[in-house]
């Protein structure tokens, strides 16, 4: 391997040590192998990019600052988003990464892959980019880290014809960035998980397909994220990380297999681990029968989590919509709050689309530049928002009613 010469990176080298897999090793590996591949006659458009990154990064470590600059607008034909432009402020010193744009590629729902698909992506990116990736970005996309402006389009084309040109089982499309719909994501849901209260993969796929235009052409006040979790455990952190979180849940009674409960009772302390930990004290256990007062159950999942073989969500399934989740800029961090307490499973996708479209129309009209939808609702009031999405107020939307009597009675003052 070492016939390729690497820059001196004494600081980064420290991060090759230790048991956890090393990203520095990955960068070095790309630097070495890409160069070797090129030498071996492979078509490599951007040799030295990973090596350039090593130089820039070592300097960053030394100086304790970034050397990346604003991107400006770089894109591929027909799309407004999906590429993060990036330039290096060390143009002269490290021309290899003067351009170092990122491409965001829409992953399949649930991050499931055939190796054939992954290999195809690797082949294309080895050719057109730095050979470095993130599996995945924290919105969920496949992140292709670093290429030049002129290779963006060919790489996009490679992905669009990944089946034909690289033997992938399907082509891959660009994901979201900028003021558009961001790539929706979903927990593994029914693919692997017994708790899923709706088909998260399907929902995620449907939204993605239906809103290709919104995903690819930024035209809103700001970004908008959708995430699908199959149950209140929320394994894609939708509540905190998406403007529109779809959280699977149920309305009727938890399904109990009493025999299985007894099995668990042999290995765990049901009183202590389940009964006592139920937040509403809805459970009782007499050593023989587990009883759940489903009127008291708030569907927190705890008991089901501990005894998955014995307990199951009810049969009347669907989802709760939480609205507004986001990071702290500008009006503060938001964990989304309840916009629709329950949509039955069979109406879920259609209803969500209806609501999404109503929200976008409103936000598009009323939202300020860089105002997330949660912030717009704060500014305009839940009252107006509920009209927009055509929902009645429900006590489940709040932890508690208002503490002030400063109520608007606009209907009396027209």
């Amino acid at each position: 391997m070492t016939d390729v010469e690497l820059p001196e990176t004494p600081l980064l080298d420290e991060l090759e040590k230790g048991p956890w897999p090393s990203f520095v090793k990955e960068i070095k590996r790309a630097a070495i192998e890409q160069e070797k591949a090129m030498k071996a006659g492979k078509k490599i458009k951007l040799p030295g990019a990973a090596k350039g990154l090593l130089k820039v990064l070592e300097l960053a470590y030394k100086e304790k600052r970034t050397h990346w600059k604003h991107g400006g607008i770089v894109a591929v034909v027909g799309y407004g988003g999906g590429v993060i432009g990036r330039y290096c402020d060390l143009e002269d010193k490290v021309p290899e990464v003067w351009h170092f744009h990122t491409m965001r590629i829409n992953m399949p729902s649930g991050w499931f892959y055939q190796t054939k698909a992954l290999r195809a992506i690797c082949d294309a990116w080895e050719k057109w980019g730095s050979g470095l990736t993130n599996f995945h970005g924290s919105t969920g996309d496949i992140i292709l880290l670093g290429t030049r402006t002129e290779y963006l389009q060919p790489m996009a084309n490679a992905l669009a014809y990944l089946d034909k040109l690289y033997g992938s089982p399907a082509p891959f499309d660009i994901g979201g960035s900028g003021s558009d719909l961001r790539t929706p994501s979903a927990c593994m849901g029914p693919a692997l998980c017994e708790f899923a209260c709706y088909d998260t993969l399907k929902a995620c796929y449907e939204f993605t397909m239906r809103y290709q235009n919104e995903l690819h052409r930024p035209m809103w006040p700001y970004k908008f994220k959708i995430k699908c979790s199959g149950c209140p455990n929320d394994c894609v952190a939708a509540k905190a990380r998406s403007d529109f979180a779809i959280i699977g849940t149920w309305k009727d009674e938890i399904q109990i297999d009493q025999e299985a409960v007894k099995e668990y009772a042999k290995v765990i302390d049901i009183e202590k681990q389940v009964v006592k930990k139920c937040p509403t004290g809805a459970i009782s256990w007499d050593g023989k029968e587990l009883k759940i007062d489903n009127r008291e159950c708030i569907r927190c999942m705890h008991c089901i989590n501990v005894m998955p073989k014995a307990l199951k969500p009810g049969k009347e399934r669907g989802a709760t919509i939480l609205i507004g989740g986001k990071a702290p800029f500008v009006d503060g961090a938001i964990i989304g709050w309840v916009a629709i307490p329950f949509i039955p499973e069979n109406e879920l996708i259609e209803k969500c689309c209806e609501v999404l479209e109503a929200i976008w129309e409103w936000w598009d009209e009323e939202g300020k530049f860089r105002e997330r939808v949660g912030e717009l609702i704060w500014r305009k009031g839940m009252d107006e928002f509920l009209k927009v999405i055509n929902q009645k107020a429900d006590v489940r939307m709040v932890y508690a009613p208002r503490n002030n009597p400063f109520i608007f009675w606009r209907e009396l003052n027209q």
Partner: protein
Amino acid sequence: MVAQEVEKEPEETVEIKTDFGPPHYEIMLHPIIKKNYGKWKYHEVVRPGVIKRVAESGDVLYVVRFGSPRLLSVYTVRDICDIADKYSDGYLRFTSRHNVEFFLTDPDKIEPLIQEVQEKLGFPCGGTWDATKGEYGLSNIVHTQGWVHCHTPATDASGIVKSVMDELYDYFTDHKLPALCRISLACCANMCGAVHASDISMVGVHRKIPKIDDDAVRRTCEIPSTVAACPTGALKPDMKRKTVILDKDKCMYCGNCYTMCPGMPIFDPENDGVAVLVAGKISDARYPPQLSKVVVPWLPNNPPRWPEVVQTVKKILETWATHAEKYERIAEWIHRIGWERFFELTGLEFTEKLIDDYKRTPYIYASYRTSAAFRW
């Protein structure tokens, strides 16, 4: 011209195709998964990193999880594919925390798989937890770009993550924690790592006002949108000089203006650093979702291994792990023992910097229900 045309790659000649979307997920599913889709009965954790999934059909699938550095070269991804081809019928997946999972039908292949991954990739098996027993492994750290790619970071991402995970390695490969603990990192207050609702999180923070380069502002910035971007109203347009004026007393170094305007870089090697937050939570299990709370306002950037940050995170994790009850996540534990005790036990200092003074969030938010937990 002619010469160029001859050299054209296939990718340069195809017709532009747009809006066809991602591959359908079904074609990416392992046959056993496809067969039992939506019909899983239960799961059992066989050992750290290995989840046995049993379908109503009786089918059994072993899901084996490995930690990944997330930043992967295509060469390593190919190695992963080789392993998936060998053990997992050519299928695999990544988790929402960037771990890699393989699917096995034959339990006898579990150990060989773990061996081979460790040897070829150096990825540890683990990151799972066993809710039945109430024994939890630590999973991967959700994180961001840092100095590897972003222009606004106040710290690096991958370097700290590597350093923390090296130190907490055994917590990943074993189930030694009393409850779920999610660690996240974001390299600036944009919080791409969504650290705002994690059990422990690290966030890069600037502490110096942006340096306004009037010339660059004139050249590269739209003044009204830059001014409007400032959450605290610290910026005013200076129309005469075609630049912006900064009220340093109002600035809280968020870098929002720099996102809008390259002419006012905010990094500062000696004053940038890392804040540590705790007690965020997302699941509805037992206790409602919570925003993370800042418990250390700043630690220095000390690359390559950020010992102060690593030790602070470790101290918090282990103090919690020592004192918490089963299923008691950090937020729940502190809810029981009180913040007084948290600071006492961890030895962290409470200062006025930790008292909230960010006034933009309206109090109405305190009354909005941020969970799907309700009675019918």
